[in-house]
């Protein structure tokens, strides 16, 4: 039968089926108009700079300045993949692979930890040009150092980890990004601005803050460092560079480092993502669009059944299931639930279910709170976000549990009776008009 419900079910089925069959080609978004940060080849090799299309490192230069070269087994991957890297470094020296994406994302870091003199800087660092994907591969013999830092949990220091593994020589692509620094003040907090803009940082400071911004964006040590290079005594090495499913589309650059001044040219791998995988350019992650759609649908239904919007469910679940930044999730979920709230208000007002005086008075108070809140979102880290949200949900569970206890229900029976009665009368009156 062609009922509205059936049409909806058919549409859902088609969407699910389509996600397996439709493959129109490359990612939807045009390539971001940003310059790729290509390291210029150093005196280590005598060959002129290669274009981005070259997949192998250039031929060995005639005299013997120390050099690093490598080859890769493929120049394109579909929805992520592993690229085998085989190369020759400097005998006796470690080798590191820096891998980063051309696509860029935003990152912010709020410095509130006491510095050497015990003062808290309260400075906000912001960039729009952090690579959407970034990883440094180190030799397997650094695994112990890696595990020691991993054991520290959330409190691991990225710059220390890199230095101890000798991998700080490989940190180059993000070291020169443009960073805006703001001095946060109490007044700024009240009126909701980021604060006073500080003068541009010098190179050393930029590099230091870039590392903090990198860690702020990717948080786990496993996402930033991989102790997986097979390194031999004669300097030859092999590694598998993994571009995960869900990484940004576009070009990926791989550079091998033996030392700060001894590195290879960049090899380029292209990551193509196909529909229904889509790249969320602000979030910096690709995902199969079917899952967030179904998730939002399920939570939307559940939320309305429960009498709530659903934002408080959508946020933590989205943040837990995919590597999305909590700022973008919060900022995108809010307009999503805005419309269901609006339609709820419209339907309720039709049956005279709203006290405008009360709603608007409290609403104005909430307007002020809603002005301040979003600014604070970028001041907390993802882990703090998850932690506080965990408690919020437990408190909410307790509140709802209390609402299902017999005592509460008995109290409510009279109110329920009045409510049902007035609802019936109001609906009848609305129909009669």
């Amino acid at each position, binding site marked *: 039968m062609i009922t509205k419900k059936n049409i909806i079910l058919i549409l859902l089925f088609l969407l699910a089926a389509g996600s397996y069959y439709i493959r129109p080609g490359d990612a939807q978004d045009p390539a971001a108009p940003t310059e790729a940060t290509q390291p210029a080849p150093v005196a280590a090799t005598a060959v002129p700079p290669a274009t981005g299309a070259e997949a192998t490192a250039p031929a060995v230069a005639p005299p013997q300045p120390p050099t690093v070269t490598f080859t890769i087994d493929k120049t394109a991957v579909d929805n992520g993949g592993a690229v085998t890297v085989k190369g020759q470094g400097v005998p006796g020296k470690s080798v590191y692979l820096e891998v980063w994406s051309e696509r860029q994302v*935003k990152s912010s870091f709020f410095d509130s930890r006491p510095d050497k003199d015990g003062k808290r800087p309260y400075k906000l660092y912001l960039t729009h040009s952090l690579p959407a994907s970034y990883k440094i591969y180190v030799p397997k013999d650094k695994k112990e150092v890696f595990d020691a830092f991993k054991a520290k949990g959330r409190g691991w220091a990225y710059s220390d980890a890199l230095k101890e593994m000798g991998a700080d020589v490989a940190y180059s692509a993000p070291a020169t990004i443009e960073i805006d620094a703001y001095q946060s003040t109490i007044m700024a907090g009240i009126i909701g601005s980021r604060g006073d803009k500080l003068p541009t940082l010098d190179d050393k400071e930029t590099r230091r803050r870039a590392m903090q911004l990198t860690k702020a964006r990717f948080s786990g040590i496993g996402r930033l460092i991989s102790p997986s290079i097979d390194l031999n005594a004669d300097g030859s090495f092999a590694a598998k560079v993994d571009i995960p499913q869900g990484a940004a589309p576009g070009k990926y650059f791989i550079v091998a480092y033996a030392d700060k001044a001894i590195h290879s040219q960049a090899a380029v791998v292209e990551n193509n993502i196909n529909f229904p995988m889509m790249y969320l*350019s602000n*979030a910096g992650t690709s995902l199969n669009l079917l899952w*967030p*759609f179904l998730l939002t*649908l*399920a939570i*939307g*239904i*559940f939320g*309305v*059944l*429960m*009498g*709530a*919007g659903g*934002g408080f*469910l*959508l946020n*933590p679940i989205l943040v837990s299931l995919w590597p999305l930044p*909590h700022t973008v999730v*919060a*900022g*995108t*979920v*809010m*307009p*999503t*639930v805005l*419309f269901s709230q609006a339609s*709820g*208000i419209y339907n309720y007002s039709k049956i005279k279910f*709203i*006290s405008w*005086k*009360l*709603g608007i008075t*409290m609403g*104005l108070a*909430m307007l002020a*709170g*809603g*002005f*301040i*809140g979003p600014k*604070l*979102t*970028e001041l907390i880290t993802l882990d703090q976000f998850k*932690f506080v949200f965990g408690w*919020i*949900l*437990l408190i909410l*569970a307790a*509140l*709802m549990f209390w*609402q*299902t206890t017999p005592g509460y229900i008995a109290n409510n029976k009279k*109110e329920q009776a009045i*409510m049902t009665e*007035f609802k019936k009368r109001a609906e009848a009156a609305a129909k009669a008009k």
Partner: protein
Amino acid sequence: MIVEFWGQEFKINIVFGCIGAFLLAIVSSMFGFGGGPFMVPLMTVGLGLPMYLVVGSSLTAIFFNTLMGTMRHYQFGNFDMTFFLIMFPAAILGGYIAPQIAKRISPLMVKRVAVVGLALLGLNLLGVY
């Protein structure tokens, strides 16, 4: 403040209510939700109002919060259009399907499922498992 509703009058401490709403709005817009499930206890317990008055009015109040929060988040660049376009139709669809199902499910059952789900999710986020 005196609120009139369905022929009855209710006397409430609006200052308390507004302070509570303000604080709730800060936390909820910071974490990306409207605050509905928290407004209801605030108004029923904090202000002593009956449920049938609270449901609609709390929705109105949090609408302001969500609206302002949305604009501010957009200002800060936290809005992803692709992501929004994926979730938006689903939310609309959900709001349409829900009343169809609501007639067949007891709201108490839904609340019980919600309690369990929320508790599990909360514990997950805190890293308990």
